[in-house]
């Protein structure tokens, strides 16, 4: 398989976006860089940028490895990506509005009805509800992979509660602290205004009941959540309160937070709690993380919940395979960003194809996330393949399959020098009634193990700073 390395071109020459960086790197002493790499890790540990790994002891906090070699994207490459991302997010929001209202896309037969009717992610309580400004996904993360100079594919849309933006910001902060000279040689588009933009974007989505300057708050499941650091980080940078379910209750028809001076209403709640746990009165009654009655207040226009409940129907892996149709249906344009070809195992022909080629494919659970419960055919043992075959036959509708893409690589810095590793990219997109804002860059996740294609932090992946160059 031909591997595309974003720094070293096919004939060993350094690709253009990396040229200035490469010249700088050539003059650097590897020992100094090694020291810098260690310094970066100490910095992260001290700041407390850790995440808790699911399924392990509550208190265990781990550091996500950070690599000091940036991933660099040219202005021209980014322009096309940005347009594609914006188009996709617009389509996702139009789709969500439609699917919770007249369902024209089903009537037109562009998406089969059973993709929605049999889908747990479809939230009936959202039927007929129009969030302020028609914005459903205030924050979206679009996972992209690359296989060649101009070949970007969308791997996954994250329209529920995408995480990782704190790493994007801290990675840049760390690079700026450690290599200030680099940034004077190269003009890199800043990402540091993300929290300000986020706050503005959320405030612009305030509900009808809001009077005066909107009060924004971040809802976290608590300090043991794997992304707690990020929740605290974003609340801190936005200058808003970080609340938990038990800080909130319904007071005077609004959702209000318990302050030292009494209850104060919240206009926009950036929640990092899943739908099911959001409201024990209306959803999972055992949830201790939510606010009983928040959905009632939401439906009555007393609060904006970001992202809106029920957005999971748009980033479901089964719906994903229809995204090209969805983009065309709502925008009337050809999709700028391609999907990875996807076989839906609930279709008989596809299932047969998948079973016959299992060792070459990646099989994912329709509702899974974080790289759990997936099969990477080329890396799987015979036993694993047999096991997955059984699972596929038992519940074909639960799976989709994709070809193993030859993901692009970017070098990481190792003790033995530079070594190519596979990467993906998650740009973050803000949407409000005022418009769409794509932060230049995003989070580059990198598989730290040689040859590995799994970039998830929960499975040992690391991160890199992502540079989008100025024009």
């Amino acid at each position, binding site marked *: 398989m031909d591997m595309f390395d974003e720094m070293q071109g096919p004939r060993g020459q350094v690709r253009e976006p990396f040229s200035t960086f490469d010249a700088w790197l050539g003059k650097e002493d590897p020992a100094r860089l090694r020291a810098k790499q260690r310094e970066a890790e100490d910095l992260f540990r001290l700041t407390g940028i850790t995440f808790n790994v699911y399924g392990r002891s509550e208190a265990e906090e781990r550091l996500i490895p950070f690599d000091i070699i940036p991933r660099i994207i040219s202005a021209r490459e980014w322009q096309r990506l940005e347009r594609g991302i914006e188009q996709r997010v617009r389509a996702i929001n139009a789709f969500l509005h439609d699917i919770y209202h007249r369902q024209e896309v089903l009537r037109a037969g562009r998406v089969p009805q059973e993709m929605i*009717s049999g889908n747990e992610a479809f939230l009936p309580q959202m039927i007929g509800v129009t969030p302020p400004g028609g914005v459903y996904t205030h924050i979206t993360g679009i996972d992209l992979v690359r296989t060649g100079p101009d070949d970007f594919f969308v791997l996954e849309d994250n329209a529920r509660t995408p995480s990782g933006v704190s790493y994007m910001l801290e990675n840049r902060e760390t690079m700026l602290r450690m290599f200030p000279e680099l940034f004077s040689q190269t003009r890199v588009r800043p990402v540091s205004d993300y929290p300000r933009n986020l706050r503005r974007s959320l405030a612009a989505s305030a509900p009808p009941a809001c009077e005066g300057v909107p009060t924004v708050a971040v809802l976290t499941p608590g300090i043991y959540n794997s992304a707690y650091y990020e929740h605290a980080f974003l609340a801190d940078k936005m200058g808003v309160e970080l609340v938990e379910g038990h800080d909130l209750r319904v007071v005077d028809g609004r959702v209000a937070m318990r302050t030292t001076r009494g209850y104060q209403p919240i206009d926009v709640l950036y929640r990092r709690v899943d739908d099911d746990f959001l409201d024990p009165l209306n959803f999972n009654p055992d949830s201790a993380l939510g606010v009983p009655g928040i959905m009632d207040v939401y*439906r009555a226009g007393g609060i904006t919940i970001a992202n809106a409940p029920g957005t999971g129907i748009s980033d479901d892996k089964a719906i994903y395979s229809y995204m090209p149709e969805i983009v065309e249906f709502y925008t009337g344009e050809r999709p700028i960003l391609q999907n990875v070809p996807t076989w839906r195992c609930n279709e008989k022909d596809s299932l047969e194809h998948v079973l016959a080629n299992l060792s070459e494919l990646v099989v994912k659970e329709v509702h899974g996330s974080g790289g759990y419960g997936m099969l990477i055919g080329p890396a799987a043992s015979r036993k694993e393949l047999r096991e997955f075959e059984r699972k596929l036959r038992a519940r074909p509708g639960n799976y989709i399959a994709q070809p193993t893409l030859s993901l692009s690589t970017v070098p990481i810095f190792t003790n033995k020098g530079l070594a190519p590793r596979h990467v993906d990219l998650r740009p973050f997109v803000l949407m409000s009634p005022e418009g769409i804002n794509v932060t230049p860059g995003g989070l580059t996740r990198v598989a730290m193990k040689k040859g590995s294609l799994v970039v998830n932090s929960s499975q040992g992946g690391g991160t890199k700073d992502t540079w989008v160059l100025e024009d």
Partner: protein
Amino acid sequence: MRLAINHTTRYTYSAPVPYGVQQIRLYPKPTRGQTVVDWAITVEGATKQVEFDDHHRNHVILFGFDAGVTELVIRSRGVVEMADTAGIVGPHEGLTPLWLFQRATDHTRAGKGCREIVRAVEGDNDLARLHDLSARVHGAITYETGKSEVVWTAEDAVAAGHGVCQDHAHVFIACARTMGLPARYVSGYLRMDGQDEQSATHAWAEAHVEGLGWVGFDVSNAISPDTRYVRVATGLDYTEAAPVIGHRYGPAEENMAVSLRVTQQQ
């Protein structure tokens, strides 16, 4: 015919309740053959927070407990004008797609018991089959109060062989959906013949029949609803149509007493 309704639900708690919410669906639905002449809801011990129409077009009101109450009283009273429609509610309306009413819920997931009932169902058309189904559910589950639990599923009721109107409705719904027909739960009031005092609110089911629209089936009384039936709320099952659902903090035990009068005015 005019029905005057006076419905009081009194909750008492073994200890002061620090906080909680009650979500109530107690406003009769505008329905073919049913006109609300006058209706008022008052609550003691809690304060109204918000109201809205949900995706089943039920009028929902959310109340918040007043701090430290030990008693909460919900009163609804009013007058409803009723006309006979032979149990036919009419075409499906609203944004909620019909296919949603074919979705199984936790309370209405058909298992062995329901499927067995469905296998025996006979009839030349959907309507006939639904009437037959209603009779079979009536036969399979004896109406008995005080021996079932509000959390019972359709299968629980079939297994027990007895239940209340809620269980009859759930089993009917689970079976109708298994037969490929959209079905829903209805909570409301029933004036039992010749008596003003009613022991409780009532529940029945509706199924959607091509050409007719929604048709009501009161399994417990083995008939289709007539002018004595006031529709209040509908949903996929009890949890979506219940007159009151709540969420409370604190360790207090709850006790509930209902008084309900449905009188005929003309």
